[in-house]
């Protein structure tokens, strides 16, 4: 089971629920240390050449994971995966990885680890390969999620759906994604992606939640395996109340 996100039909997690039902306010979960994991598939044949599109982004100058298909003068195709993170002073860190056509036609496994507390670094892993670790200057501050107008979103299949001219839509399919407010080792992240089912307990018939023994549970923003979803929401395994929802400009705060 997966979630297929159509072009220009994005999905979002709204961290600040208007019903105030969330145990954890996750709008600042990428401000400091974090660990992000996803398995996402893009569709190169349907990508618009030279147009960047975001699989996952947080509010704030398109920080997140994006893809672009370049076609050069000789009609050669280059498909690039980019991790970008913007800082408050409008500088940014970017790590890129070119994908082969074979890689781009399958689910791509991506992990980003941010050590903000000690090393001030981002590390990107793609399909088990450590792509790069880039450090940033101590004085730089991460762009605070909560300081963005309208509050913070985690956006899927776009960079900023509220402003169509810079929405940077991407047709893509998600198989798994989770986010921790904590720096985890790469091995630990992969271990959780493979073993999370050992920590599931039934909640209501077909629905399940991660039990209290799931490692770092209190630092988990969301864990989506896409096994359960209804027409507008994806069931979230931490049962934190921060659901991935179909985006609708008419009512951002549903």
């Amino acid at each position, binding site marked *: 089971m997966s979630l297929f996100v159509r072009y220009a039909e994005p999905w979002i997690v709204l961290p600040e*629920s208007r*019903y*105030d*039902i969330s*145990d954890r306010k996750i709008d600042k979960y990428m401000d400091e240390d974090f660990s992000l994991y996803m398995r996402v598939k893009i569709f190169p044949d349907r990508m618009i050449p030279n147009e960047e599109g975001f699989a996952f982004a947080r509010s704030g100058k398109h920080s997140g994971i994006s893809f672009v298909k370049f076609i050069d003068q000789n009609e050669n195709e280059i498909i690039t995966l980019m991790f970008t993170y913007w800082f408050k002073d409008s500088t940014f860190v970017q790590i890129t990885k070119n994908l082969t056509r074979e890689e781009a036609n399958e689910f791509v496994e991506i992990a980003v680890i941010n050590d903000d507390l000690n090393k001030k670094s981002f590390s990107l892993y793609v399909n088990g390969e450590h792509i790069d670790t880039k450090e940033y200057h101590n004085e730089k501050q991460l762009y605070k999620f909560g300081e963005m107008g309208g509050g913070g979103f985690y956006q899927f299949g776009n960079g900023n759906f509220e402003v169509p001219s810079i929405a940077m839509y991407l047709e893509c399919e998600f198989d798994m994604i989770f986010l921790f407010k904590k720096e985890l080792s790469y091995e630990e992240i992969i271990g959780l992606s493979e073993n999370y089912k050992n920590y599931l307990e039934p*909640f*209501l*018939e077909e629905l399940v939640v991660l039990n209290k023994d799931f490692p770092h549970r209190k630092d988990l923003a969301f864990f989506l395996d896409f096994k359960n979803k*209804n*027409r*507008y*929401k994806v*069931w979230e395994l931490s*049962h*934190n*109340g921060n*659901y991935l*929802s*179909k985006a*609708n400009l*008419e*009512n951002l705060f*549903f």
Partner: protein
Amino acid sequence: MAEKYKMDLEKQNPLYVGIKNELDSVGPGMCLAKWTQVTLSLQIGHNHSCHHPRTHAISTAEIARNPSALHNTRYKKLRRKEMLQGTRPEECDYCWGVEDNSDLFSDRIFKSSEDWSRPYMQEIKALDWRDDYNPKYVEVAFSNACNFKCSYCSPAYSSQWMEEIQEHGAYPTLDRFNDLQYLVDEHKMPLKHSELNPYTEAFWKWWPDLYKDLNTFRITGGEPLLSKDTWGVLDYIIENPNPNRELKLAINSNLGAPDALIDKLIEKIKKIEDGNRVKQLVIFTSVDTWGEQAEYIRHGLEFNRFWDNVNKIMSQCPRVIITFMSTYNALSLFNYNKLIKEVYNLKDMYGSYDRYWNSAVFLDSSYLRYPNHQTVQVLPYEFSKKILEQTKLITYYAIPLFDPKYIGFSDIEVQKLKRIHDWMIAPQDPTKQMKNRHGFYQFFSEHDKRRGTNFAKTFPELEEFYNFCGTIKI
């Protein structure tokens, strides 16, 4: 009212500000509901206009001369006089409390803004206080005949409860729950079903005149399907050559009546739907959780038959709406999530543009306030997490916009459940809570004795708490 806040309100709620100004131009106590709305309890001969003031007795002498005195009682006319002459009726103190102690609008503004009130503002302002006035929103209980005796109900609304209390007396809680003496003192003893009911008689004399301009008519009870007067109303609407097609008709039912009556209801609904004889038809039913635990709370309920009846009505009546009035109480907690899921499935299965409302079914979750011993506030704090989980679940099934093209829970359905959680965790007086816990054990242990039920077996999640309550000495 703080000037800044007042300005905010004016900006945000021009309708309510306008209504308030219009009402206040008559006097600070003016409220249209005193004319436009009435709840009639014909089994006890009482009424009130607006649910906040206590009910008052209807004079049999008055209705003998003038059947509209079911609503236009002398008592009420004196309250209208106070309103028209610029004073605040004492019985409406709920609203005065809100207005004097906060910046919020009180219910007199909201009730006067309804579509059954607001259009009549000018004609009501021009009335003399002695004038009769036909209400536009009428709720009526014809009888207390009921086949259920829900744990939080009372003999005034259930003949089954009446029989039990007459046989065994009040429950041994500190407040002597359901003691008939209270009904005697308040003049609220229901008339016997075998007796001629002068209030019902007056209703039928008044009905042809009342019906033609009604906005909303809601039949409550007792169980309305057990009352011949309910069928009389439905037949009147079906057979009337000039039906009031603007009428919003609502019928309460526990949907636990014999099959023949459910089938009869469906037959009548179909005729009303097919003839386009009302603006909308809504059935209000009640269930407070799922399965066996729901059966315990609402004694007499056969859950599976109830759910079958819901499906039967929804599948056979393509326009009707069913609202589940859920009185969320201490016993609702453990299976309410199943109710949420199954109501969602009903919305999914029966959602249609043909329905009168945007959703085929609604889950209206309200918290039980009385009896105190059964509210969620008697439970230990940690149980509140269950309600929070349920709020997350209902949010998972919520819709982006309240529109028939979406299937799921509306904003209000989510918010009402969240409100129960917030109410449960609100600070409480520990002494009162201890008394209520004492009452919890006293009531349900007596309930098991009288009705042959088994609390601990039905609610294993509460067994430890129940036993603890049994140790409390007052």
